[in-house]
């Protein structure tokens, strides 16, 4: 029954290498995580502004307000860290971290070339999905611990939405995995050496993107923080640095899901024209992030029931169909 190679666990691997390597990798991931979302955030400011025919931030850092987000950060740090009296202090304080950390960890497996990556797990995409699903707990914690009904409603909305869209997300990813025949992110990327999977699975790509938007609770799927209904959802009571963490989570999420989407469907770091792989990867992430922002300016918010209906009656059946087709083709060809 045992067909496994006698080998070593992940930890063996880590322990076998130098701790330094680990630290360096961790630092690299962290730095990337801290920088990339800022860029996306800035992009959102400017892109939205231009789409709405206004300028956006123009002062901080002089050149088109490039340091606006840094300034925001500084402002958040200065602000008083308010914890509501009725709140559950521990849970309230831990929530931002729980929401944020999964996205950081997620970048451990994102490859920027076939050599630049922190870890190549043979179940990479699975790891991504697993880690990505933890984030919801942070939102629920935030919503519940705030002792505010709007927060709670927001959190419940978020959780319901995240569960509902987790399925199409995973299913869409699964059909890519089926085509690539591997779970490893590098493997999937390498499997797109002749064409991108978006060509064979355009529907899957669309599903993945839509589901990602919902996972990120980005417009038009931003019912959990619908300010006209429930103020700011789960984050209503948050101020200062804690609130900043949630913002970071959001932008980090955009980067994370964009990178996964580009790996799954757009050939990841693989490019042409001799441009270095990491740049291709960055470009694809940027492009997809742009799309995410663009949609915010384009579509109005859905209603809660429409949102659930859309997932269960449209996305999931479609995703299942996609899997079926891929499966048939795979069997027919293979």
């Amino acid at each position, binding site marked *: *029954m045992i067909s496994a190679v006698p*080998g070593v666990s992940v930890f063996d691997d880590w322990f076998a290498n130098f701790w330094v390597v680990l630290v360096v990798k961790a630092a690299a991931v962290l730095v990337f995580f801290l920088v990339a979302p800022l860029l996306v955030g800035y992009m959102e400011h400017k892109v939205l502004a231009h789409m709405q025919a206004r300028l956006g931030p123009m002062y901080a850092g002089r050149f088109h307000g490039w340091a606006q987000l840094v300034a925001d950060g500084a402002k958040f740090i200065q602000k008083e860290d308010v914890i509501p009296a009725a709140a559950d202090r521990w849970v309230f304080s831990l929530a931002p971290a729980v929401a944020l950390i999964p996205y950081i960890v997620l970048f451990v497996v994102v490859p920027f070339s076939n050599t630049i990556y922190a870890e190549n797990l043979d179940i990479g995409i699975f790891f991504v999905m697993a880690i990505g699903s933890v984030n919801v707990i942070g939102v629920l914690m935030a919503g519940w611990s705030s002792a505010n009904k709007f927060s709670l409603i927001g959190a419940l909305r978020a959780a319901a939405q995240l569960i509902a869209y987790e399925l199409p997300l995973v299913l869409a990813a699964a059909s890519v995995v089926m085509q690539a025949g591997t779970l490893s992110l590098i493997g999937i990327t390498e499997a797109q050496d002749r064409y991108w999977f978006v060509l064979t699975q355009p529907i899957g790509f669309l599903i993945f993107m839509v589901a990602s938007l919902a996972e990120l609770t980005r417009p038009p799927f931003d019912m959990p923080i619908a300010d006209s209904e429930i103020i700011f959802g789960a984050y209503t009571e948050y101020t200062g640095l804690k609130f900043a963490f949630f913002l970071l989570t959001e932008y980090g999420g955009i980067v994370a899901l964009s990178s996964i989407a580009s790996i799954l469907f757009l050939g990841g770091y693989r490019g042409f024209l001799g441009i270095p792989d990491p740049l291709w990867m960055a470009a694809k992430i940027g492009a997809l992030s742009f799309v995410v922002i663009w949609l915010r300016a384009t579509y109005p918010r859905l209603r809660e029931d429409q949102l659930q209906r859309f997932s269960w009656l449209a996305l999931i059946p479609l995703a299942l169909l996609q899997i079926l087709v891929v499966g048939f083709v795979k069997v027919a060809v293979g």
Partner: protein
Amino acid sequence: MSAQEYAFVVLALVGTVAAFRLVTARNVVHAALYLVVTLAMVGGVYLILAAEFVAWVQILIYVGAIVILFLFGLMLTKAPIGREALDNQQRGIALLVGLGVLAGLVFLIQNAFHWSDPKIQPIHVTTGALGESLFRQYVLPFEAVSFLLLAALIGAIVLSRKDERS
């Protein structure tokens, strides 16, 4: 002790403490969060034991889905912030039984497996091998489980949806 064992002991200790807090917590949501910690630690244990796939399944299904369901359930049934009487009157008996089970199991286990003798040499199992076994040898239970999940899904919807009339 090997490095793995140190890592294991740390995870196990954290997991144990969280498990105890889970069953003693005075607040339902805290209990659920302790459950997350325990589950994560158990997932870590799987990693140490080189059962990578199971570990991530643990995170994906348990932490990512089951706990969310729990939290959902708790919040829909208005889990209050603050303390309430979550325990019944049989705490003493429960403690006795729990300790009894523990003592019995520990005794039986150390009786059956010598402390130093069987050492696990974790083997890294490729996901492929596990998949092979799932879809070849265990394809029948796999299909059965899929029916189970579908039934649970449909049934849960039927039960929890609000009927128009009521």
